[in-house]
């Protein structure tokens, strides 16, 4: 099922992985947490391409620079720890972040607001309506990691059984689990003197945002099959658009091969909604090999 052999086009998932990977600097320590195979893929891909000196810390196992033969559907598995150069402990990993030594963390949420705040705790403000699984260490790391990449493969509004569409990019989070650029009481992040500088990228399946000087999400990239209007219609808050709005870059054939070797079972596609399973993007140039 996963043995995609066509190297002339990439899947939506592969485009997302490539976009997430672009945010990963070489030589930093980055952590993928658990339950986030697109991020796992992006880190392993980055390590094998532009960021060979990346310190890749695997979520749940805390292995450093593992070389798993395949991705498993759960993260705390020895299969994911295979080939680790060394290991950290939970407290060590979080200490590294708290002391300013985690370069980047990757976070998401069932609600994401214009400031990059995220909710993975609960829907319902005064009364709990839907209990979400919780954020693991995301709350801490959103404050401590130098930089955050936010991603979601579910920007597209959900058809709701009731009247109102359910947004992923919301006007306001019911609960702020992971901190973006404004606090729950609307203070600026920088006034808190936190260790980390907050999110600098929000990658969705409809577009890519950076954050402007005020800490507000700003659209910088669309997909070959999306545009500003489509993205606005799926976003509850209004947002500025960059003067240099572009179409997302896509991986090349060599890169696709690297990605496809990482996850023979296609675990990472579990993050992609059914409606998006058949979104493909034609690569500009297709290197024969």
């Amino acid at each position, binding site marked *: 099922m996963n043995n995609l052999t066509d190297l002339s086009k990439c899947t939506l998932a592969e485009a997302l992985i490539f976009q997430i990977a672009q945010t990963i600097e070489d030589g930093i320590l980055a952590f993928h947490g*658990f339950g986030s195979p697109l991020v796992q893929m992006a880190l392993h891909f980055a390590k094998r391409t532009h960021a060979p000196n990346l310190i890749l810390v695997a979520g749940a196992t*805390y292995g450093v620079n593992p070389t798993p033969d395949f991705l498993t*559907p759960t993260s*705390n598995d020895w299969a994911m720890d295979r080939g680790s150069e060394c290991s950290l402990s939970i407290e060590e990993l979080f200490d590294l972040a708290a002391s300013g030594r985690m370069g980047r963390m990757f976070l998401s949420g069932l609600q994401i607001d214009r400031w990059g705040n995220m909710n993975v705790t609960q829907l319902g403000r005064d009364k709990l309506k839907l209990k979400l699984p919780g*954020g693991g260490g995301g709350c*801490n790391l959103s*404050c401590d990691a130098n930089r955050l990449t936010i991603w979601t493969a579910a920007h597209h509004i959900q058809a709701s059984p009731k009247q109102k569409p359910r947004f992923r990019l919301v006007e306001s989070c019911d609960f702020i689990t992971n901190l973006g650029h404004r606090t729950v009481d609307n203070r600026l992040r920088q006034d808190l003197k936190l260790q980390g500088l907050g999110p600098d990228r929000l990658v969705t399946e409809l577009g890519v945002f950076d954050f402007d000087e005020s800490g507000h999400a700003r659209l910088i990239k669309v997909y070959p099959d999306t545009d500003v209007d489509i993205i606005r219609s799926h976003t509850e808050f209004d947002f500025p658009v960059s003067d240099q709005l572009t179409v997302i870059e896509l991986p090349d054939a060599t890169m696709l091969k690297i990605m496809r070797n990482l996850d023979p079972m296609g675990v990472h596609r579990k993050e992609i909604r059914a409606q998006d399973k058949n979104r493909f993007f034609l690569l500009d140039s297709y290197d024969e090999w």
Partner: protein
Amino acid sequence: MFTENDKRCSLTELVGFIHDGDILAIGGGLSSREPMAALRALVRQGIKNLTLVGSAHGIDVDMLCGANVVAVSNESYVGFEQDFGMAPNYRRACESGQVQVLDSCCYTLVQQLRATISGIPFMPMRSIQGTSMMQLHPEYQIMKCPYSGEELILVPALQPDVTLIHAQYADQHGNLHIDGPLVADILFAKASKKVLVTVEKIVSHKELQNHGITLPFIYVTKLSEVSYGAHPTSCYPFYAYDRKHTAEYYRSATNAETFLTDYLLPYVFNCNQHSEYLDAVGGKQTMNLLAQWKAGKQQWQSLYE
């Protein structure tokens, strides 16, 4: 400090050290090295009103919620990741108010355990500020740092009454060897009043030293040899995660009405001995299959397909 020479006991006795209303820390994490046999025994023995503290958990917490023995959840994450998604019993218990939701985060938990370990009333930290976690936890305090002038968060010491761990090896004195990722097990053990351990194999002290001692005996209250005691979560190198059984669990858990009859009765209440449980989940055949991960990449991968 637990100095008893021979700490071995039966699983029933072991679980007898857990009392109604205890703060319980569960070792392992997600689909790995959860002390499932002990948790099933706990449910059978009718222990109730537990407060759970932990980092990232799955079937363990979900099953306890489904058996209605949890009063408060202080966990950071409870779910089945991308494998099956949200934890059905946990969600329902939280949403109905049966379980009080006091979500925490991993580092907050680490700092709270560290305070207990160091015998101090709190630990300072920077993160959490500006998030909704502060509202959920009025016990967190804000202080102005006398050195830097900045605002810091203080989180109070947290001491579990009991930590329940499943380890690969132990000697009868209670020295443990834990293989692979430790999650918060060591922090839990050092911070807890009591540490109860199930192990795959109790070996001689000499053999244990060859494996390496992960946790000294001084912290360990009692231990019980329970092979396959983490099933259906993994306990490498003995066995991998039983994804098939977990899928069956998940399907049963989605339906509140039938969870008791579909899962708890056949796999918990009707299995007075752990061996009966092992038979119920497929016995030797299943266990041999789960040991096949060692045979090679293809065999390992096939366990997830």
